[in-house]
């Protein structure tokens, strides 16, 4: 995957500098362990600084500068005028479009402070969307209360965000206001650094995942970014010493850190989300991370639309951690049309003269590496193989309906509905004649997933009744007793509140939790009345595993 990191204007440039510095540090670390991998990673990322003022780009390498609107602004800036900046972009539209066309993922960063960022970030994102790129805009809303800008600039920044909403482009909106804490006054550069760091570290994790599409299904990404609303990025370091697993407290702190990013505007419930895990630890740790993030998402609302996508950033250098990208749930939307074929074009170009550059590893870094070669990169087998692999990735063609017979299992069908496959949606709307087999184990597994909750409302009554029939007729639920003493209660007697409280109880045995999860989900999707259709059978008593029993164990034989 070829990723373009693009800044627009001075404020966006500052964030990009911070992000680039972090990425360069990573490359130095990776270079030590795996030079070939570091080289591939370096080439995957291109950075460009767009500005109307060439003087503000003086410290940026020449090949990374893109001064727009030379005639319109005479290269001295947009005079704090977003409209002038927009005209400058129009003047240089061809260059910008050409730059965007060479990448599949475009991360564009801008601030609403003065002219260039405020005037160009939306048109750039729109250009990228028109070219069917996966675009992640990051826009900083400045604070007028703290005198960063005047109120009218602040109001203009609000209008920029509204433009993104109207165009159905998801936006990561950073609120500078939240960087000020009256109880702990700090210098402005410290505040900005504190705000930039989670974005930079979060994007770093995201880049590792986006770069290697083997870790994430492209169609899932098409759903994640579909529709309007806000994105919230989070990152937490989770970096145990070599050979050790992170402890429970560390995991809890990391999950909390990922969940809370107070600087991001985000009002609605968490919908489809990406959780990227970087770190060579056991799957038990992965499970805890996923479970605790899900618990936080589900705590927000009883019928949470949380629908997680999990990815692992393979071979990511230390410091390890967890990156999350939460999308605000604003409804169900058809997946975006994303053209992943840019990878193929780049691969072909790499065989000749290349115009990809990547993030250079600077000579002054602690590890001596070959100097930056931003142009004329000699093709390597590694690069070609990656590009080739990506080129084979499925291209999403949502308008081409599939034959209903292609859904051999109910699981496949549900997944197709989740990614808004037209054929699946047509079948979901009726389904009376469908012969897709339903296996009770498969249905139980589906009901335990979060993403199925967003699929369920899209299924017709016929489908919903059929699922309930399968579950209630073929699944027997042991009537477990939960709690102790007077508080002990049977599954069959539990209230909705009790079920919701108990389902996140970490002391529950796995099999009990699975049954409780099923009962809770059925009650949530079909209502409490549906539980009457279950046949609760007496539960087999759990083995006595109390401390006393453990102490007496040696005397039993």
């Amino acid at each position, binding site marked *: 995957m070829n990723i373009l990191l693009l800044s627009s204007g001075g404020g966006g440039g500052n964030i990009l500098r911070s992000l680039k510095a972090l990425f360069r540090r990573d490359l130095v670390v990776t270079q030590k362990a795996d030079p070939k991998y570091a080289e591939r990673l370096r080439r995957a990322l291109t950075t460009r600084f767009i500005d109307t003022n060439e003087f503000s780009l003086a410290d940026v390498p020449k090949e990374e500068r893109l001064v727009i609107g030379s005639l319109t602004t005479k290269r001295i800036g947009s005079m704090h005028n977003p409209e002038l900046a927009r005209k400058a972009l129009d003047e240089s539209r061809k260059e910008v479009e050409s730059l965007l066309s060479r990448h599949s993922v475009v991360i564009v960063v801008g601030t609403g402070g003065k002219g260039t960022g405020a005037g160009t970030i939306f048109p750039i994102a729109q250009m990228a969307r028109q070219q069917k790129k996966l675009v992640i805009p990051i826009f900083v809303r400045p604070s007028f209360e703290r005198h960063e800008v*005047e109120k009218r600039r602040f109001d203009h920044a609000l209008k920029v965000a509204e433009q993104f909403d109207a165009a159905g482009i998801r936006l990561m909106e950073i609120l500078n206001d939240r960087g000020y804490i009256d109880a702990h006054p700090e210098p402005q550069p410290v505040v900005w650094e504190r705000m930039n760091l989670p974005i930079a570290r979060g994007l770093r994790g995201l880049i590792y995942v986006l770069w290697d599409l083997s870790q994430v299904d492209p169609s899932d990404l098409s759903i994640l970014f579909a529709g309007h609303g806000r994105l919230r990025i989070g990152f937490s370091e989770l970096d145990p010493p070599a050979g050790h697993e992170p402890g429970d407290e560390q995991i809890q702190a990391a999950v909390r850190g990922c969940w809370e990013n107070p600087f991001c*505007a985000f009002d609605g419930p968490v919908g489809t989300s990406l959780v990227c895990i970087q770190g060579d630890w056991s799957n038990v740790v992965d499970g805890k991370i996923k479970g605790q993030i899900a618990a936080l998402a589900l705590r927000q609302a009883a019928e949470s639309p949380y629908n997680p996508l999990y990815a692992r950033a393979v071979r990511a250098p230390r410091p390890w951690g967890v990156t999350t990208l939460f999308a605000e749930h604003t409804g169900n939307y058809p997946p975006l049309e994303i053209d992943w074929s840019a990878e193929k074009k780049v691969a072909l170009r790499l065989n000749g003269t290349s115009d990809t550059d990547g993030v250079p590893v600077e000579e002054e870094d602690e590890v001596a590496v070959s100097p930056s070669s931003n142009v004329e990169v000699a093709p390597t087998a590694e690069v070609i193989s990656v590009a080739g692999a990506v080129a084979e990735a499925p291209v999403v063609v949502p308008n081409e309906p599939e034959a209903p017979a292609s859904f051999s299992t109910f699981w496949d069908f549900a997944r197709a509905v989740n990614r808004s496959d037209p054929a699946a949606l047509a079948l979901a709307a009726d389904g009376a004649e469908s012969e897709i087999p339903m296996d009770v184990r498969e249905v139980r597994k589906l009901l335990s997933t979060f993403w199925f909750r967003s699929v369920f409302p899209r299924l017709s009554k016929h489908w919903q009744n059929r699922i309930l029939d399968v579950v209630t007729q073929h699944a027997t639920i042991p009537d477990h007793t939960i709690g102790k003493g007077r508080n002990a209660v049977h599954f069959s007697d539990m209230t909705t509140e009790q079920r919701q409280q108990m389902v996140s109880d970490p002391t529950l045995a796995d099999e009990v939790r699975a049954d409780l999860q099923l009962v809770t989900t059925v009650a949530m999707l079909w209502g409490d009345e549906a539980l009457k259709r279950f046949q609760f059978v007496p539960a087999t008593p759990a083995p006595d595993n109390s401390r006393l029993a453990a102490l007496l164990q040696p005397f039993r034989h």
Partner: protein
Amino acid sequence: MLKPGHAQPELLPVSTSGFGVPQPAVPYRATGIGAIERSGLWWIVPLFVAASGAGFAWGWKWIDARRARVDVLRTFGEKFIREFEKPLRRNATSPPTKSRVRFAPRRLRVDILIAPAAGRTYPNLVDHKRNMEYDVERVMRLLRNASFVNGPLYAQGSWVVVPCRFQPDRQQEGAS
């Protein structure tokens, strides 16, 4: 002066002997007075009813007009505050401002008082005067109500006062 229909006053004996003669007490309720008042009521009552009716009608009209004025002023004040707060409410977890509206219906004047909520610094006229002036102009432009004219802003404690005057004639002038 005697008036027809009124009873003659009783003539009391006056001594000429030089010493006082005890005078009989005048009865407290002279029968003739009651008769005079009752006979006058026939025209006072309708007059009173008519006057009360007229007064009531005038009062009702006055109250109605006052209520209408207050409604116009209140509606404007509320719309102003809503528009003023709209950008500040974006992503806010609590109300961004405190607000009040006070009226002087006779003078067709409404004062909109806005102060920052706890933990906020805007609005104030100490360091946000220009922003405040811009914001008032913005809101007035958005409301598109030519009948209201705002005066210069001033502070009253922690409140910023936006004085506005209702001038119905301006609406007519502006109407085409």
